[in-house]
């Protein structure tokens, strides 16, 4: 975050702001890759290192993540002796949308399921997703177009097999969600209402006003709580996976408790990782839109047991995180607000980018405006640009209140009214584009281990489109739940930490420091004695 000291001061810019001012023409489009190279945080100098050990040795990785992937484990064999053991068919780690979908599907297929989650069931990034879920259901849309948009949006780095299967699942995913009791916005004729979004060739975003994730999460949470075959352990983060004698197969996990700090062993045939992303690692010093628990634990656990990861150098910075009011710093203004026609305006009162370009491009353009002195500065020196909501209110009175109640409610407690005052925004760390390598059933390269949702990679390439995350978590969550249940082997004879020993040897040989322990579990500023590393 360099060159953040220039720009026009907030109150001065606000006094100068007019919702009816002439905006002037959009500047000529610049070369997208030149813009990304110059301003996108993925390309910042010194932000990448090469991994020294593990399945991705030699690959580029964000520095903060690499430190955790190549760190020491919390436990060794001595910790396992005398630890209580629970046997279960399927263990799901993570209580967001992906974890709940996986647990529900596994239970539907007849498995006894344990869902363990670090915080409270439903406490996740899913609950904060505002915009919607993509599914090709309109007459002039097709599965094929959905596939193409997703691959293009991801700069063709996504796995076409995964993208195809997810897009094809879209309509069935919506039916399943409605069956679970999820509501969606409808047209007067009863059709599901669809919206446009950045990078979509046609309206494809199905939504529940701007509470799509909350509606999804509270319904799935209730379905999980009510399900007779699913047991839920809250406040129970996973600190390590368990492997068989050869360290080649995942046969369970070691959980701890944030309440009493005691370890528990869970022995199982299949483990489904649904731990989400890593925004709370604050890569490159950025604020984040993410939930408190998003500390990349799943990536660390999967890597240590030998799973292949991908695109560890690619993260999504959502263009419009709030800079003001301060207590919402980094929190999102949904892309739906831009899709509804809201423009981005710099301190000089000019537009500077087509607002519905893919997120990485819009993000880079905002960072360019800020670093070249055309941003708006607040007291602590941070700089942003206007999201011109009052202009939208003028053009379409009442729309903000009707379609974006979440935004209105959140800003109200700080006395900010987006209908009267433009919102000051700056890119915020939002999404992990890559993750654990999976096949179409969510299976990782390690037998017995599945990964679904944000922790998995390969679907969104190097940039995710709006509305594909909520689809991804349900599509692959259900697939992994079913596949994990189909695994009917006899289960583990012995649970070991052989994989931990293997990585420890590799770290020693590579001369790595091994002073840090991982997974992170909670950000350092929030541990407050609940979790001591």
């Amino acid at each position: 975050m360099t060159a953040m000291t220039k720009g026009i001061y907030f109150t001065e810019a606000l006094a100068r702001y007019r919702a009816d001012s002439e905006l002037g023409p959009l500047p000529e489009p610049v070369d997208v890759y030149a813009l990304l190279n110059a301003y996108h945080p993925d390309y910042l100098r010194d932000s990448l290192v090469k991994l020294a050990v593990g399945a991705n040795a030699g690959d580029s990785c964000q520095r903060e993540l690499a430190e955790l992937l190549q760190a020491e484990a919390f436990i060794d064999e001595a910790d396992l002796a005398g630890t209580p053991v629970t046997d279960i068919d399927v263990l799901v780690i993570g209580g967001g949308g992906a974890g709940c979908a996986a647990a529900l599907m596994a239970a539907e297929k007849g498995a006894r399921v344990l869902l363990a989650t670090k915080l409270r069931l439903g406490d996740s990034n899913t609950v904060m997703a505002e915009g919607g879920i993509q599914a090709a259901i309109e007459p002039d849309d097709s599965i094929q177009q959905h596939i193409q948009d997703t691959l293009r949006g991801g700069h063709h780095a996504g796995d076409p097999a995964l993208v195809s299967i997810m897009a094809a699942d879209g309509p069935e995913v919506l039916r399943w969600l409605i069956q679970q009791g999820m509501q969606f916005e409808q047209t007067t004729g009863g059709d599901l209402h669809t919206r446009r979004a950045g990078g979509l060739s046609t309206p494809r975003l199905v939504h529940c006003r701007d509470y799509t994730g909350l509606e999804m999460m509270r319904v799935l949470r209730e379905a999980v709580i009510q399900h007779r075959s699913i047991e839920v352990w809250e406040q129970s983060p996973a600190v390590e996976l368990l492997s068989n004698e050869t360290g080649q197969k995942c046969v369970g996990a070691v959980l701890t408790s944030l309440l009493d700090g005691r370890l528990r062993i869970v022995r199982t045939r299949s483990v489904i990782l649904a731990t989400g992303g890593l925004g709370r690692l604050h890569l490159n010093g950025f604020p984040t839109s993410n939930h408190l628990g998003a500390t990349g634990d799943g990536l660390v656990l999967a890597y240590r047991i030998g799973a292949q990861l991908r695109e560890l150098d690619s993260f999504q910075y959502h263009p419009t995180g709030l800079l003001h009011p301060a207590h919402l710093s980094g929190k999102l203004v949904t892309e739906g607000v831009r899709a509804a026609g809201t423009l981005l305006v710099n301190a000089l009162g000019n537009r500077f980018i087509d607002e519905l370009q893919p997120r990485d491009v819009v993000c880079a353009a905002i960072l360019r405006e800020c670093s070249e002195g055309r941003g708006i500065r607040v007291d602590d020196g941070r700089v942003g640009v206007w999201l011109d909501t009052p202009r939208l209110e003028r053009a379409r009175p009442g729309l903000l209140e009707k379609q974006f109640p979440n935004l209105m409610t959140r800003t109200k407690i700080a006395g900010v009214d987006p209908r009267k005052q433009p919102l000051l925004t700056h890119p915020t760390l939002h999404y992990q584009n890559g993750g654990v390598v999976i096949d179409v059933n969510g299976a990782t390269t390690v037998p017995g281990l599945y990964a679904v949702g944000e922790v998995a990679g390969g679907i969104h390439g190097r940039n995710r489109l709006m509305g594909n995350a909520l689809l991804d978590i349900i599509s692959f969550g259900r697939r992994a739940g079913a596949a994990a249940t189909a695994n009917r082997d006899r289960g583990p004879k012995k649970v070991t930490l052989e994989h931990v020993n293997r990585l420890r040897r590799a770290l020693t040989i590579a001369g790595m420091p091994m002073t840090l322990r991982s997974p992170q579990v909670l950000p350092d500023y929030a541990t407050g004695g609940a979790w001591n590393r």
Partner: protein
Amino acid sequence: MTIKNSPAEMADESRPVALTINGLAVSAQEGMTVVEAAWHGGVPRLTGVGCMEGVCGSCRIMLRRGDIVSVGLACQTFVENGAEVIFLPPASAPRHHYELSDFKDGWDIHARFQDIFPEAARCRHCHGCNVSCPKGISVEEGVMQASAGRFRDAGEIFFECVMCELCDGACPELIAPAHVGLFSRRVTAHFHLRPPNLIHRLEELRQDKLDKSVSYIDDGDD
């Protein structure tokens, strides 16, 4: 413009605020939320913090300011001098059990509701739920609509519900209003949401599967 009065703006002046959180004296700064103040003051064993934008319903607190005791969400509550804050434990497991798949059709849903939530009809209109709701939902009205079998209207009233379950704790009749609200929303979608555009596309895909055995379609259901 309301900007000058916003707590965030005043935070820049760094005026100290003294309060207690879980019994510990904390010196915070004006404009901080209770969550920020708790971290700032090193309050131990905080496991109830989630999204920090008021939608996950985890950071439940009880708060005393002067003579007034109230409940709310820590991430949505700004610090005040002399306030006493207690983080509440997570809600206990629900006592009302149902699975939507047990309901065969929508005609007997009103009877099923009364079996599952028998207490809902006994609401004594004490307004405890309304007062406890951090989202300002007319909880009591929602429970009344559900008791009358008007599940669509009831569900709409609960639209902004974040499942903090503070209303459940406030109800002397143990109605579990938050779960009444969610039940209402779920049965409305489950029995009545039949969108033509989605149904048409599902049928097209089914035909594709029969005709051309398109390889990428595998709904995993059969």
